[in-house]
């Protein structure tokens, strides 16, 4: 039988509809790939029996003519989505043993459409990280490794990016056809860029946050991680919905995003923000960006230089807002309702010991920063100041969108780096998100598209940022960019072959 794990989601959907293969066959091949790919450490939990059961139900749906774009598609789910009676711990020790008694709205939508769950994927603890090295379950290995000058593959492990590192490793390694991710400051887009995948963060409010383990509630959004732009469009349609259980979810019709992929961007106005041309940006990133501009121009788009003056303040603003919200959200982990409990001197001692043992270093660091910037005497200087600058950043974008339809930038300032290279320098790690954070702060949709390879043959991505709730125009541009880049590179398999 042919290797079904190499299909795109759209190809698998069409093959299932035609009866070329069943969801059970498709799922079994992915389960076998997962077993072989355990060295990647992309899955925390494999839900084999559930997957086969869901596949059989999907096959019945297809047979009865009730199939949707996601029916029978085996996907991986980031551990931050609550899945009923299944391990959901956001890769944190403090949620040890937590099996929620409810299902997140996003995953419920996917199961309703007949998608098949392969398992829960590894991630940075509570989505705090850009390299997937902060997980309680150990780091995730990028399926990609640098190619040395002599043409051989490096023996070092590379980071997959983060926080959705397990999700991207699973899809890039062909262990899953697609995966759910979540993006607070770049956690879908940066890892997608590091692994040669498409990562889509929709407009804030497009997906329900209900049942997603919260990090920074004013920024968190769910989105798909896929092999192609078309796959992202198909999966996005299933994930998005209005949900009265999330007061920030927005009551708007979910369009058929795949219909937006017309291949025609003639006359589309694409903005190039000069502030994204950072000092010290690697030449190859600059070159790829320039190439992207040329591709869009060749496809008939109009290129317009724009200015987003507050760009350089986005990252420090984010590192006030996100830790502040995290310190509040993570107050719920107290050893009483779920997860870990470590006894101590009285109630307060129990709280303190539980949280000292349950949170990792990066999570503690952010809780402490967040507590500090919200504390009496500092609130105005830090938190209020940051929220004002956030307004200015959003206004920069609003002004730009008077002139342009989408904005084109690099996704990340570098390709994937070697494991351990940045783990001792928090600020160097934070800088990974320099190009992704501004859109997060403004709540705008953004997508990373694989566009080329670095000098040592690691994937590089370009980012498109769209108008609020105009994912369609952004996807149309992304689809054209994807075709122009004609990116076909695949990681050389180094895992599972001992």
């Amino acid at each position, binding site marked *: 039988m042919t290797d079904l794990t190499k299909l795109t989601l759209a190809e698998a959907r069409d093959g299932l509809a035609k009866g070329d293969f069943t969801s059970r066959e498709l799922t079994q091949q992915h389960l076998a790939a997962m077993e072989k790919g355990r060295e990647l450490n992309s899955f925390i939990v494999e839900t084999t029996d559930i997957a086969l059961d869901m596949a059989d139900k999907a096959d019945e749906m297809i047979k009865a003519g009730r199939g949707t774009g996601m029916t029978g598609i085996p996907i991986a789910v980031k551990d931050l989505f609550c899945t009923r009676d299944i391990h959901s711990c956001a890769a944190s020790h403090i949620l040890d*043993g937590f*099996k*929620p*008694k409810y299902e997140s709205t996003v995953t419920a939508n996917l199961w309703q459409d007949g998608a098949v769950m392969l398992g829960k994927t590894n991630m940075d603890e509570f989505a705090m990280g850009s390299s997937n090295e902060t997980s309680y379950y150990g780091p995730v290995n990028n399926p990609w490794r640098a190619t040395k000058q002599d043409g051989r593959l490096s023996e070092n492990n590379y980071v997959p990016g983060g926080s959705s590192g397990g999700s991207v490793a699973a899809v890039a390694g062909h262990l899953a056809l697609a995966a759910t991710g979540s993006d607070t400051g770049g956690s879908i887009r940066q890892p997608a860029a590091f692994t040669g995948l498409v990562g889509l963060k929709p*407009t*804030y*409010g497009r997906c329900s946050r209900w049942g997603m383990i919260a990090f920074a509630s004013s920024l968190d959004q769910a989105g798909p991680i896929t092999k192609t732009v078309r796959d992202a469009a198909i999966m996005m349609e299933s994930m998005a919905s209005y949900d*009265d259980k999330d*007061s*920030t979810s*927005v009551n708007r019709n979910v369009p058929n995003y795949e219909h937006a992929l017309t291949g025609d961007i003639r006359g589309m106005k694409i903005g190039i923000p000069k502030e994204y041309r950072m000092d010290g940006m690697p030449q190859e990133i600059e070159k790829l960006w320039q190439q992207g501009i040329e591709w869009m121009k060749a496809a008939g788009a109009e290129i317009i230089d724009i200015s987003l003056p*507050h760009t350089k303040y986005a990252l*420090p*603003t984010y*590192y*006030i807002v996100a830790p502040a919200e995290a*310190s509040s959200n993570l107050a719920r982990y*107290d*050893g*009483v*309702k*779920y*997860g*870990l*409990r470590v006894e*101590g001197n*009285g*109630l307060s*001692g*129990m*709280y*303190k010991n539980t*949280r*000292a043992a349950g949170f990792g270093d990066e999570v503690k*660091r952010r*809780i*402490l*920063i967040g*507590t*500090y910037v919200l*504390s009496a005497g*500092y609130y105005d*200087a*830090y938190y*209020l*100041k*940051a*929220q*004002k*600058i*956030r*307004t*200015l950043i*959003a206004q920069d974008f609003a002004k730009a969108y008077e002139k342009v339809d989408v904005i084109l930038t690099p996704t990340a300032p570098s390709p994937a780096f070697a494991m351990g290279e940045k783990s001792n320098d*928090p*600020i160097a790690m934070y800088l990974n998100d320099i190009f992704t954070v501004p859109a997060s*702060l*403004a*709540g705008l949709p953004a997508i990373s598209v694989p566009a080329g390879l670095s000098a040592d043959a690691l994937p590089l991505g370009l980012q498109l940022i769209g108008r*609020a709730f105009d994912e369609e125009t952004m996807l149309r541009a992304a689809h054209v960019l994807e075709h122009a880049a004609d990116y076909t590179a695949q990681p050389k398999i180094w895992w599972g072959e001992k």
Partner: protein
Amino acid sequence: MSVDKKTVAKIADLARIAVREDELDPLAAELNNILGWIEQLSEVNTDGVAPMTSVVEVALPWREDKVTDGGYRDEILANAPDSAHGFFTVPKVIE
């Protein structure tokens, strides 16, 4: 603005995270490194700028004031590290 050992101990106490005495100095250095970097925001003129309250301009929905959820005590207690008689338990807080 920079934090000293005493301030770190205070915010760790507010955040209910036990921190050992020998961890305080390294933590203060780490936090100061981050706070020093954040300091650049002070150069931005924010006079007359309204702080952001929501990225999406929509009115929050209203709903009827009635109970729409509940009635599953056992499910809520199912993940508790310890429970008794249908309640969560905590260490004794009354002397």
